[in-house]
C-alpha cells in the first residue's frame, strides 16, 4: 500500500503493475533504463503514491510503440506522413504562443454565431498551468476543450501524477455537499485551482464550463490540503452567484 510519504519501493511496484499517466515514453519507466527517444520524456514522479484514481488513457501502450518505431526507423522512413506521436510536444513548432493565441481568437471571432464562442476579449485562450513541484509551466488552450473532463484528461497527460478528484455528473464540484468537498481537500490528491478575472483563486469546477473558460486567467494544481484555504472563499463566492 502506498503511504503518504511514498517510499521508493512502492513507486516501482506501482509503475510495473499499473496503467500510468504521462506522455509516451515516460509511462512506467521501469528502471529508467529503457528511455525511449521521445519528444518529451515525462517520467513517473515520486508523488505517484497519491494517485488512487487512474484515468484510463486508451492506447497508451500503442502510442509508446509508435514513438519507439519512428525513432528507430526514422532514417528508413518511406512514408513521411506518419506523425511520431499524437501527444503535444512542448514548444513545437517554434511559434510563440502569443501568435498562436491570435489565431485562436480569429477562429473564435468567426464563430460568433455558434455556441462554442468563448470570451475573446480576455486576451487569448492560452493560460499557464503550473503544478506544485513541477519544474516547468505548461500552457493550455482552454478553447480546445469542451468540458472539465476533457481538460482533466489533457492535464493528466501533461502532469503524470495528477488526477482530478470526484467531479460528479456535470463535472462541477458539489459545493453543497460540504463533507465531500472536505474529503477532497483533506486528501493528498492534487486539486486544480484557477485565478479568475478578479484575481481570486478558486477551485476548478465551481462554475459552468463556458463561464470558466471566460474567466480563467491561469491554472495551478496544488495538493488538496493546500487548497483547503480556498474552500471557504470559493464556497462563499459560489453561494453569492447562485
Amino acid at each position, binding site marked *: 500500500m502506498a503511504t503518504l510519504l511514498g517510499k521508493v519501493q512502492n513507486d516501482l511496484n506501482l509503475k510495473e503493475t499499473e496503467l500510468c499517466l504521462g506522455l509516451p515514453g515516460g509511462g512506467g519507466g521501469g528502471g529508467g533504463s529503457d528511455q525511449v527517444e521521445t519528444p518529451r520524456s515525462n517520467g513517473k514522479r515520486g508523488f505517484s503514491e497519491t494517485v488512487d484514481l487512474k484515468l484510463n488513457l486508451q492506447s497508451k501502450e500503442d502510442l509508446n510503440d509508435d514513438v519507439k518505431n519512428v525513432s528507430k526507423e526514422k532514417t528508413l522512413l518511406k512514408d513521411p506522413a506518419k*506523425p511520431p506521436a499524437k501527444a503535444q510536444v512542448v514548444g513545437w513548432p*517554434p511559434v*510563440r504562443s502569443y501568435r498562436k493565441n491570435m489565431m485562436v481568437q480569429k477562429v473564435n471571432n468567426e464563430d460568433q454565431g455558434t455556441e462554442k464562442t468563448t470570451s475573446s476579449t480576455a486576451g487569448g485562450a492560452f493560460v499557464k498551468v503550473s503544478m506544485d513541484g513541477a*519544474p516547468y509551466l505548461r500552457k493550455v488552450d482552454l478553447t480546445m476543450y469542451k468540458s472539465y473532463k476533457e481538460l482533466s484528461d489533457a492535464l493528466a497527460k501533461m502532469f503524470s501524477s495528477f488526477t482530478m478528484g470526484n467531479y460528479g455528473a456535470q463535472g462541477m464540484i458539489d459545493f453543497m455537499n460540504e463533507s465531500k468537498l472536505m474529503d477532497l481537500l483533506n486528501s493528498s490528491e492534487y486539486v486544480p485551482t484557477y485565478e479568475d478575472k478578479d484575481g481570486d483563486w478558486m477551485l476548478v469546477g465551481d462554475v459552468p464550463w463556458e463561464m470558466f473558460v471566460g474567466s480563467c486567467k491561469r491554472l495551478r494544481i496544488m495538493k488538496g490540503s493546500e487548497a483547503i484555504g480556498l474552500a471557504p472563499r470559493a464556497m462563499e463566492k459560489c453561494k453569492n452567484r447562485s
Partner: protein
Amino acid sequence: MRDNHPPPPTSDDDHRSSSLPDLARGGQITDSSSSKTRPGPGSSSSSLPQPGSGSELQAQFPDQVLENVLENVLHFLSSRRDRNAASLVCRSWCRAEALTRSELFIGNCYAVSPRRATARFSRVRSVTVKGKPRFADFDLMPDDWGAHFAPWATALAQAYPWLEKIHLKRMSVTDEDLAVVADSFSGFRELVLVCCEGFGTRGLAAVTSKCRLLRVLEVVESLVEPVSEDEVDWVSCFPETQTHLESLVFDCVEYPVNFEALEGLVARSPGLKKLRLNRFVSMPQLYRLMLRAPQLTHLGTGSFSDSEALEQEPDYASAFAACRSLVCLSGFREIWANYLPAILPVCANLTSLNLSYADVNADQLRSVICHCRKLQILWALDSIGDEGLQAVATTCHDLRELRVFPVDAREESEGPVSEVGFEAISKGCRKLESILFFCQRMTNAAVVAMSKNCPDLLVFRLCIIGRYRPDAVTQEPMDEGFGAIVMNCRKLTRLAVSGLLTDRAFEYIGRYGKLVRTLSVAFNGDTDLALKYVLEGCPNMQKLEIRDCPFGDAALRSGLHHYYNMRFLWMSNCKLTRQACQDVARALPHLVVEVINKEDEAAVDDIELLYMYRSLDGPRDDAPQVVTILH
C-alpha cells in the same frame, strides 16, 4: 519590423571572430593590457582593473594623448565592435574608450553584474539589456527562471541620472521597475520593451506620466495582460501639452485603450512618425487617427475591422492616400478582407508590410502585392498559399526579408505552402537576405535552388513542421539542401534547420558555415559527431540552441575550446549527463553552467536542460529552485 528601412537582418551578436586560447587553457582571463586576448564575456567589459578616480586618471595621462585619442579616433567609433577593439590597444585607450562610450550593450544580463558594467562605463546615455535565451519563448524554461530587470534598474538609476534610452529584450520587468525608470531619469526619452513580461498598464502609466521628454515608447511582442482592478488608463497620463512623441507602439497590449485620450494625444504630437495600435482600435477609429497624423511613416492598423456596420462608411482609402510618407504597414489583427483595398494608395511606396496576423488568401494578397514594387520586408501567413508566394515573387524583386507563419501549426495538417512557393520566391526575389519559412513539406531541390538564386542570404530559417520529415519527393534526408545553403550562401550568419537530418548535414555546416553565429537545431542528427562537427568547425558560433537531439557528453566535451567565445549554449532533452556538465564547469571556471534535471526521479544523472554562458561575475543568486548551477 521597427525601422523605416529594413534593418540588416542579422542578430545583434557581438562580432567576435577568433578564439581565446588563453582562456581555454588556463581557465583564467588574463589581465594584461598588452596581450591580445579579447575582453571577457558579456558586452564589452573586461577584467582589466577599473580606472582610478578622476584625479588619478588625469595625473597619469599626458593630456595631449588623451585629447587626441578622444577626439580623433573614439569620436568616430559608434559600433561596439570597433569600440571593443579600441579598448584593447592599451590601458589608456581602454579607459578613454570607457569614458566615451555612450551606448552600452549587454547581450546576456548574467554575463556581467550591473555594478561592474556601470563602474567601467561612466557616461552612458543608452542601455540595451537582453535576458532569457530565445527557446524560453517556447515554454522550455521555468516561468520564474530569472532575467530580472530590477537590479539593473537600480544600478542604472544610480550611475546614469542622465540616461535617455533603455532597450530590453526577454527580460522580466515589473511595474515597480518601470516606476524606478520613470522616477530616476529626468531626461528619459526612449523605452523599448521586446518580448518582456511582468508588467502591466500601471508601469506604462508611470512612464507616460513622468517622462515628459518621452519620444519613443515601444512595447513589442510583450505580455501585457489585464489584471482586473489594477488597470490604469496609461494613455491619459501623457502630458496635456504638446508631446515629443515620435514613436508609440503598443500593438501587443491586450487591453482596450481610452480612444478619446489617444486621439487627443495623436493630435498634440506633431512629431509622431510611428504609431502601432492594438487590436482594440477599430477601423473607424483608425480613420480618425490617420486624419490627425498624415505625417506617419509607420502604421500598425489595429484590428482593421469594425464591430458595427456603419450606415455611411468613411472613405478609408482617402485616409491612406493622405499619408504620403507611409512606408511600413502592420496590424490587420482581425482583418475584414473587404477593407484591404483601402491600403492601395500607399502600396507603391511601401517598403515593409506585415500581414502575419491577417488570414488572407492568394487573391486578396495579390490584389495589393502587385502594387508593392518597392517592398523589402514581408511577413505573412501561409494562408496566402504557394499562389500568393508566386504573386510576391512576380512583383517584389527588391525583397530582402520574408517571413511566412503557419495558420495551423499542427504536425498532421496539410500545409498551404510548399517547396513550390519556396522555389518561386527564390527565383523572383534574388536579393533575399533573410527568410523564415514554416511549411509542412519541402524538398532538397527547392532549398538548393534558393541557395543558388539567393547568394546574399544572411539568415536562413526553415521550419518543416513535421518532425523528422524527409524530402517530400525523394524521401531522402534534407542534408543536401541545408548543405547547399551553407556552401553557397557565403555570408550566412544565422541558420535554423529542421526535417530529417543526419550527421552529414552538420558535417556540411561545420565545413562551410564559417560565419554562422546563431544555429538552431531541433529533432535532428544521429550521433555526437553532428555536434562535434559544428563545435569544431564554426569559429564564429555564438548562440547555439539545441533541443531533442541525440547529442551526449562526448559532443559536449568537444566544444571546450570554444565555449568562452560564445554567448550561450542551450541543450534541452538531449543525452547529457550531469557528470559531463560538471566536468565542463570545472574545466571552465568562468562559465556558468545551469542545469535542470529530468522530472523522472529515477534518472538522477540525466539532464533535461543545460544552459551555459560565460560570465565575469560567477553564478547568479536569483536562480529558482529547479535550477542547479554546477561548479
